[in-house]
């Protein structure tokens, strides 16, 4: 072989090598995620998209710093005082309670984004050939997102399925916005199943419709809400359908509605988020509900990180239970007082950590009935008084504020994920909405009867008379709004309720602002910067 012959051979082999590694089209292989075409082609994928929309509820509703904070810390039911070196967090908690938030507030942004993620994921289901029930579930879940967006921000962005995500979507507000939600729920309802629980049911749709009709007047004019008789009648009709269905009853032990096994014990769950203890796969668990309020030393094995020692309620709200004197040295026996205050022995909690669920005031004890101490060695005795500027600086900074433990800690999975199901829509709320609608349509005796029926089941004495609200005393015990507070405290409905009862702009403890702009949260600056169709709410 001479050189000249060899050269072409060599060159050929080079070409062969080049061809082997040759031109690629540069289509990106995703490797562990699917494109939308692949999703369409995968049987069963639509069910996964529906599940994804349900899963969007979890952080939004479980976390202490999302919907809960905006709906509760902004009201008289809850606040987070700064305790020395703890819970300053750049003032985010204090401004929510004092109504001094602005359009850069992280919680205002996170809730907006969280609700819109649900808005998107529910809408996206409709693009992937859903069954009738899947489409109905998706429209129901989207309605939840739109309802909260309208309630909190006064407007919501809306995309049709398959819209280009790089384009700014339209924004709906006012009557168009609420009417669309109602129409959607009415359209979805027939295709939903009847069994209540974690899957959207017909009753869940009815419940959300009740909220829409009850709050419609407030959504259209938050400063001076009006209540159309036709809307109230809708609330009554829908509510009666739920009440007479035979699927629900008031659970005898109030805290069984919130226990780690509430899925089995409670008969009040119309729409719940089912959590499985110890399994992180559903990314849930309501453990923040007790961690956020309990003291660091509340549970011996986790001292000094058993709780975050933050959230408290104010004594004014506590006084709406009408227990008489200011609750300083509180020690309810198992037979006294409204059962919803708690303070009673609860198996699975008191025998494990000494905790008695409900409102925690005064000396706390461990499971051996030994008095617990705070980190400074002072008695761990919660006191109702909180510093007026919500900044605790004294020697007692770890024990100020009445604590509220509504969800009974799941001591098997204390740090989480805990097994308590989250009550999203609860039967007692539907009951009280009907009572309210009857009151607002003039049937005051019927309304009072319903309230007293509920109170009797809660071991509370009957009210002799009741008004809707007392504009001069937010926490007047003899009002329907207070009954809602007593029943539904820390269930993320208080802000909406106070607005509907025209009390949200009244002062209460540590909140002096009466500015009507606070009836709506601002549109987050980040969202305004991205979508020119969003309009900032008045006053921001």
């Amino acid at each position: 072989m001479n050189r000249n012959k060899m050269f072409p051979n060599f060159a050929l082999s080079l070409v062969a090598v080049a061809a082997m590694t040759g031109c690629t089209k540069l289509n990106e292989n995703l490797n562990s995620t699917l494109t939308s075409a692949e999703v369409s082609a995968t049987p069963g994928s639509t069910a996964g998209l529906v599940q994804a929309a349900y899963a969007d509820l979890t952080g939004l509703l479980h976390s202490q710093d999302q919907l809960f904070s905006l709906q509760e810390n902004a009201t008289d039911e809850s606040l987070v005082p700064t305790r020395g070196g703890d819970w300053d967090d750049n003032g985010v908690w204090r401004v929510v309670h004092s109504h001094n938030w602005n359009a850069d507030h992280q919680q205002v942004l996170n809730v907006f984004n969280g609700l819109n993620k649900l808005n998107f994921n529910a809408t996206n289901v409709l693009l992937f050939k859903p069954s009738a029930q899947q489409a109905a579930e998706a429209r129901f879940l989207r309605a939840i997102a739109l309802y909260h967006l309208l309630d909190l921000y006064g407007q919501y962005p809306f995309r049709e399925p398959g819209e280009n995500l790089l384009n700014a979507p339209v924004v709906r507000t006012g009557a168009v916005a609420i009417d669309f939600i109602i129409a959607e729920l009415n359209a979805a309802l027939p295709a939903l199943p009847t069994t209540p629980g974690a899957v959207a049911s017909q009753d869940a749709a009815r419940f959300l419709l009740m909220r829409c009709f009850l709050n419609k007047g407030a959504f259209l004019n938050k400063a001076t809400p009006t209540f159309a008789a036709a809307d109230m009648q809708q609330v009554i009709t829908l509510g009666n359908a739920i009440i007479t269905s035979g699927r629900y009853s008031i659970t005898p032990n109030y805290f069984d509605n919130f226990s780690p096994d509430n899925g089995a014990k409670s008969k009040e769950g119309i729409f719940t988020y089912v959590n499985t203890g110890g399994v992180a796969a559903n990314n849930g668990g309501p453990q923040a509900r007790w961690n956020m309020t309990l003291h660091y030393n509340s549970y011996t094995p986790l001292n000094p990180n058993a709780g975050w020692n933050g959230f408290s309620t104010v004594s004014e709200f506590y006084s709406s239970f009408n227990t008489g004197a200011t609750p300083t040295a509180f020690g309810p026996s198992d037979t006294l007082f409204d059962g919803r205050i708690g303070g009673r022995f609860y198996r699975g909690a008191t025998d494990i950590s000494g905790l008695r669920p409900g409102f925690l005031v005064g000396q706390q004890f461990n499971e051996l009935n030994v008095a617990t101490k705070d980190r400074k060695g002072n008695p761990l005795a919660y006191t109702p008084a909180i510093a007026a500027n919500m900044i605790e600086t004294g020697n007692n900074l770890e024990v100020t504020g009445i604590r509220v433990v509504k969800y009974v800690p799941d001591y098997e999975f204390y740090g989480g994920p805990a097994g308590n199901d989250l009550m999203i829509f609860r039967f007692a709320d539907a009951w009280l909405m009907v009572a309210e609608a009857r009151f607002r349509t003039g049937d005051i005796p019927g309304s009072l009867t319903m309230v007293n029926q509920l109170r009797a089941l809660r071991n509370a004495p009957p009210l002799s008379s009741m008004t809707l609200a007392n504009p001069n005393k937010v926490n007047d015990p003899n009002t329907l709004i207070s009954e809602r507070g007593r029943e539904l405290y820390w269930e993320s409905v208080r802000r909406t309720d106070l607005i509907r009862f025209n009390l949200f702009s009244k002062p209460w403890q540590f909140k002096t602002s009466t500015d009507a702009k606070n009836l709506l949260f601002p549109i987050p600056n980040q969202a305004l910067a991205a979508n020119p169709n969003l309009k900032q709410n008045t006053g921001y």
Partner: protein
Amino acid sequence: MRILKIWLCLLVIGAPSLIFAQSKTVTGKITDNRDESPLVEATVSVVGKPITTKTGPDGSFSINLPADARSLRISYIGFTDRIVSVAGVTSIDVAMAASSQNLTEVVVTGYGGTRRKDITGSIVSLKAKDFNQGLIQSPDQLLQNKVAGLEVTNTSGQPGAAATIQIRGNSSIRSNSNPLFVVDGVPLDGSSARPNLGNAFGSTPSSNPLLFIDPNSIAQIEVLKDAASAAIYGARGANGVIIITTKKGSAGPMQIEVGANYGVNAGFIKRFEVLDAGEYRGALKKFNQPATFDGGTSTDALKAITQVGFTQNYSVAFSGGNEVGKFRASFLGSHQEGFLKKTALDKYLGTIGGNYKFLDKKLVIDFNIIAGNYGEVLTSVSNTAGSTGNIVSSALSWNPTEPLTKNGLYNFPSNGSGNPLAFNDAYSDKSSVNAFLANMSVSYTFLKNLEYKFLYGINYGTGIRKINVEGWLPGIPNLSTLGNAAIGDAKLLTQTFTHTLNYTKDLGSKLSLNAVAGYEYWNSDFSGGSIDARGFKTNLTQTTRTDIPYTSIFQNALTQNPYNTFANPTSEIQSVFARATLNYLDRYIVTASLRRDGSSRFGANNKYGNFPAVGVKWAISNEDFMKSNTLFSNLGLRASFGLTGNQEFPAGSSQEQFILNTFTTFPQIVNGNPNLKWESSATYNVGLDFALNKGKIYGSIDYYNKNTSDILFQTNAIQPAPASISFVNLEDANLINSGVEIAIGADIVQTNKITWDVNANISFNTNDVKNFTDPNTNRDNFVPTGQINGQGVSGTLAQVITNNQPVNAYYLKTFGGFDSSGKQLLSADPSFAGDPNPQTLAGFSTSLRYNKLTLSINMGGAFGFLIYNNTATAVTNIAGLAQGRNIDKAALNSGEGVSSGVGASTRFLEQGDYFKMRNATIRYSVGNIGNYVKNFSAFVSGSNLFVLTKFTGFDPEVNIDKSSNSYPSRSIEYVPYPTPRVITFGLNFSL
């Protein structure tokens, strides 16, 4: 052909003088003055006569001189020419001093090399002799303070931790702004196969992705700073390029090089000053705190978590070869104990390379294989520790009057500080990475000036990591009484296929051409998985511990999360490129290059981008009118312009993606943007190279302006959307880095007995974000980042990326002193509070030799930036005193009361300016011992000996990853792994 004729003529003319004028023979030996190693094939010539010879394998030479010869010129690539007198001598040994000013040496410029004199851009080339010395774990440390405009920030004292590497400032507003690393022609993808694994204490610092490269095996490193130089790497060149070339065998007898060294940690380079027991008692009294807080003893918790820590490194290299075949093989075994107890880094690396020529040397086969394993043992140091703390935060806040152990068990006071020794004992985190980087190339010279080359490169790495946290550790939710375990794995595979044609030709006597053209295909895959569990039955109390890790009894756990796996989208880049350099008369040089890159990451509408560059140089000193000048031995003016790209965003961002998630959910997770394309940086560079006084003083000055546009921005998605972010190109936005770099060197003394040289560099950079607005609404983008962590400051962000500010400008509430009750006064709203990016970088190194003793020093620093002290904000603030925890001295003396409250503010911004003694080494070169041991030398070396700074934290060279929502942070300190001083002793010899 003409050139050949000229050479023939020279030979013919030279030959008679060889024959007729000889009268004397001089013999001698040429060595490197650093280690007395022989210089093989050095040129020895008679000044003024056409007589030359070359040194042999042992550096010796013999030359015949005419009677009138007065001196010899010795020259060797990479060394300064020496002229020595031969008057009256017949034997002469010359120790040569290395020089960075040799104009004919080849600088690696990517896909080939360029003679230094033909360089038109801004490239710094460092040889092994120039590297930083002392304890070096990864190649980037070799460069610290050696290159103007290159910032290598060690972000952690953990051996093997990743460094923040930036060339010419921060040119990215995404998380990765490190330069592209190319090792022996193989571009790396910048990731490490050490799995990322969450644990109870937050995210751990990243591992250095270059750990598998043995620093001893590196021959030279080129740093391509300007876009004209880096543009040959196209869409990956925007952050600059660092090209690493490993050592190769050379023709000559078989050689064995042996090195061994031992190191010990010698304390903190700088301590974070908290109160000692006496001061603490005083503070309790001063602030009226309960006497029960006094535990009655004296404990230095910070010292308790550290160890002396020994390091051993053993390396051996074999090399040898002849004209047609050369090889080199080297091995490194290294065990380094960290400064914090239990931590360590082990490395076992082998490097084998060869160069073989066939077919009359026309066919050349080159290969280089790096294979090895490294293991890291980490402790509970974390970037984002919250209120439960970690080893460092608990040591800082440990009550110094409390003993750490009582009756042989860990003491847990109820103040929430945690016990640092218990953290260390209960936590175990071990990773092991197998890494393999190989390339093989075939080149064939099929026309006289035309060479074809095919290179295949592969980088393969697999890693496994196991974390155990024992359940007896109290006070930690989801851990205490349960125990946690996690196992992670990762796999990295990158392949390169490169075809190049290289053409070199003299076009007439005045013009020469060097051109390269090629095609390249590169792909990269990264995948992995992790599994975790909690709720074990063992090791739940201090007194009943077993030595069985949870990761060995995984199935025992009550709660097990499923094995979660991922495979990132494949990244592919397909490119064609070409570069040509024309040199006219050695006076006017033009280089132009073009790369066309297609990348799979880009959107369907924008797959390909073009990256052109052009550079010119005027070698003024070669002009006729400079012939008579005696001042400048070299004077050149350079100017270049180039366009480089950046594609460092998460692969898959251009496509809508749906993930198959846990709990049978199936959400869309990426919004998709089919218009996504590269970010491009246009850089102008003007430079002046000079050498004065026969090359004894040399240096360069560069001015650059780097304008990054089409910024790849992680923007807020337009809600409603599946993900809160999506990637877009901001077409009108600019990120501008501009600055000046000055590098100066001087060979002050060069005699056989004494040599002394000095190198210094300084660079100034300013960084500005311009036109940074949202394309939909024209509002300024305002991206908060820089997480501040710890109790009481959750959710606080300290920095912002926004218009008309430096990247990561501080945005904090203003501190206004204390009120009468000792509470800190903070403004209601935050405002811009300064720049975290160093504006000035400086490096200084010197080497002084007296006979066989050489002292080398390397120092450097960064200036003109602010550090945020998150540790002082949240861990050692005065509120801790009221809980029985320790506080820092600044807090004690501030006039603040114990109930002042915690908050992030300008109070904790500190000047970051520092100057560090990075390394000082004294080496004694014994020379040959007996017949076999050659070039024996011994050294003692100190690394991180001291730092001059006003910063009150551990080490002002700090950049803890405090990114928020994937937006990067800069210059925030938070309970870092402290930096130790390290003293190393070692010896080297060859056989």
